[in-house]
């Protein structure tokens, strides 16, 4: 009887191993296909793809991020109270500071201001905030000393002051990659068997980027003869890097943005749904994204279901308003969106730190 049980266990292990391999291969195939298709479109029609992707996905991906962060928010902050207070006050103040600059410029109160220094000061506050967050997160961990974050933050601030505009441009290019880090942490929790395959997929990223840069480095400049196209090339850093092909810069930026949208809109929701089918509640149907009760903050007896539902509904309303505004005046809406979107860039930092 014991031998029969052992044989069944071996067979179960074998079946499970086979299933893991198959699902892992499917995951790799999907990631590779998405990356190659994104790179091809970004190389072929960078301006058009940029316009379409921002129109379609900018709002929804923010909504999915909001929902993801709500699922990660604890019902009671407990020992993380100071961490979350620092995080939220930083997000609020830095966003206010960032969004007020264009408003002050439009009002005409910034005559004679040195914009490079103002940008440098804002970047300094951002890096200090990040350094403090990393240090505070390290204090919550046993056997970990993350006080290196303070000298590293000071070192980065020093680099920032050498050329604040380039530092801000670096944030534009690095922010999309943070989504890949979120995906890595999420996979470790929900599908650890896919993590090695995912890491192998990440090796493809520098190859694709290198190929794009090599192919586009001597391409003809993009036709940035209208205001919208000019804005897109400026956002990608064409003015700061005049020696580089604007076509290459826009393509690389669009490619990274598509990856960012893909992670938040496809990868994370699909992996969460597939993980819920494998867990202890596997017999239940995966929860709908609209089901507020699937968020711990709302499900808990002492939670805040109304607050979570209101946040999601307001987020959905903002997405619809954004689509409507894009249809009315794409250029202005794009400018406003990329200014306000700094809030979601900032919000990613504390939630990623909590997952590390």
């Amino acid at each position, binding site marked *: 009887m014991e031998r029969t049980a052992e044989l069944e266990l071996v067979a179960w292990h074998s079946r499970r191993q086979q299933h893991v391999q198959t699902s892992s291969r499917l995951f790799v195939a999907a990631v590779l296909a998405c990356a190659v298709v994104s790179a091809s479109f970004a190389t072929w029609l960078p301006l058009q793809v940029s316009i379409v992707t921002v129109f379609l996905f900018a709002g929804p991906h923010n909504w999915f991020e909001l929902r993801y962060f709500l699922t990660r928010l604890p019902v009671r902050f407990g020992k993380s109270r100071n961490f979350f207070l620092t995080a939220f006050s930083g997000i609020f103040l830095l966003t206010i500071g960032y969004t007020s600059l264009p408003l002050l410029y439009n009002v005409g109160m910034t005559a004679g201001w040195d914009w490079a*220094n103002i940008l440098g000061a804002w970047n*300094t506050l951002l890096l200090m905030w990040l350094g403090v967050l990393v240090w505070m997160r390290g204090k919550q961990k046993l056997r970990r*000393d993350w006080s290196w974050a*303070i*000298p590293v933050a000071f070192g980065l601030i020093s680099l920032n*002051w050498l050329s604040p505009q380039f530092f801000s441009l670096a944030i534009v290019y690095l922010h999309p990659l943070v989504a890949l880090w979120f995906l890595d942490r999420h996979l470790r929790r929900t599908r650890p068997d896919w993590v090695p395959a995912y890491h192998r997929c990440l090796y493809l990223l520098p190859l694709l980027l290198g190929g794009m840069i090599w192919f586009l480095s001597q391409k003809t400049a993009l036709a*940035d003869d209208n205001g919208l196209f000019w804005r897109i090339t400026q956002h990608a850093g064409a003015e700061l890097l*005049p020696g580089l092909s604007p076509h290459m810069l826009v393509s690389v930026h669009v490619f990274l943005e598509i990856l960012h949208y893909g992670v938040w809109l496809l990868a994370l929701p699909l992996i969460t749904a597939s993980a819920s089918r494998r867990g202890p509640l596997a017999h239940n149907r995966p929860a709908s994204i609209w089901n507020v009760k699937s968020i711990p903050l709302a499900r808990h007896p002492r939670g805040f279901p109304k607050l979570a539902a209101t946040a999601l509904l307001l987020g959905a309303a903002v997405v619809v308003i954004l689509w409507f505004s894009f249809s009315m005046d794409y250029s202005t809406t794009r400018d406003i969106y990329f200014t306000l979107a700094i809030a979601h860039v900032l919000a990613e930092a504390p939630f990623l730190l909590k997952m590390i």
Partner: protein
Amino acid sequence: MKTTATLAALVLLIFCTTTLVQADIARPEPKPTEPTPAKQVLNTGLEIVPDSKAWNARLQISEATLKELREATNAGATTQSFGQRMAGSSTNTIVAGLFLFMAISFGGVWLARSSGKTKSHKAVAAILVACATVSTAALIAQGNAAPPASYLWRNLSKNLSTSKTTRGPIDIEIVAEGNGVKLIVPTRDAGRTTDD
């Protein structure tokens, strides 16, 4: 005797005077007037596009670049390259230096507090020392100099003959002499052509 002495004194006086006023040295050749140095007003990008269908050479400037050019020439200020900008702003350099000092100080405190605890800390310390050594060596050897802009123009002649586009950085300068527009392209790296 008296006359001889007077003549000798007179000759001596003349010799002394000519030595003092350097009267035996020929007048220097008049120097050719040096041309007014060109004033760099803008650092931007240039794209040279061979067009088999075009009838005349055209110089296209985007509205944004023209606006920048106008602002730069009106203000009388010179737009510097990235390296010049980095080195030129003393305020930024002071602030950067201050934060670098704080980074090194806090890093030193962190290393001292955690020294000998783990192998990773020793590795970080070794990396920091190696970075500092390499940086110092690079500064001494002026290894931080930017790569020459001429590198991007190295394939120009080949690209022109094959009707391909060439793109690279350019400094726009205002010169006192001459008419029209002159394009000076570096050819010192032309020997290093590649197949890209």
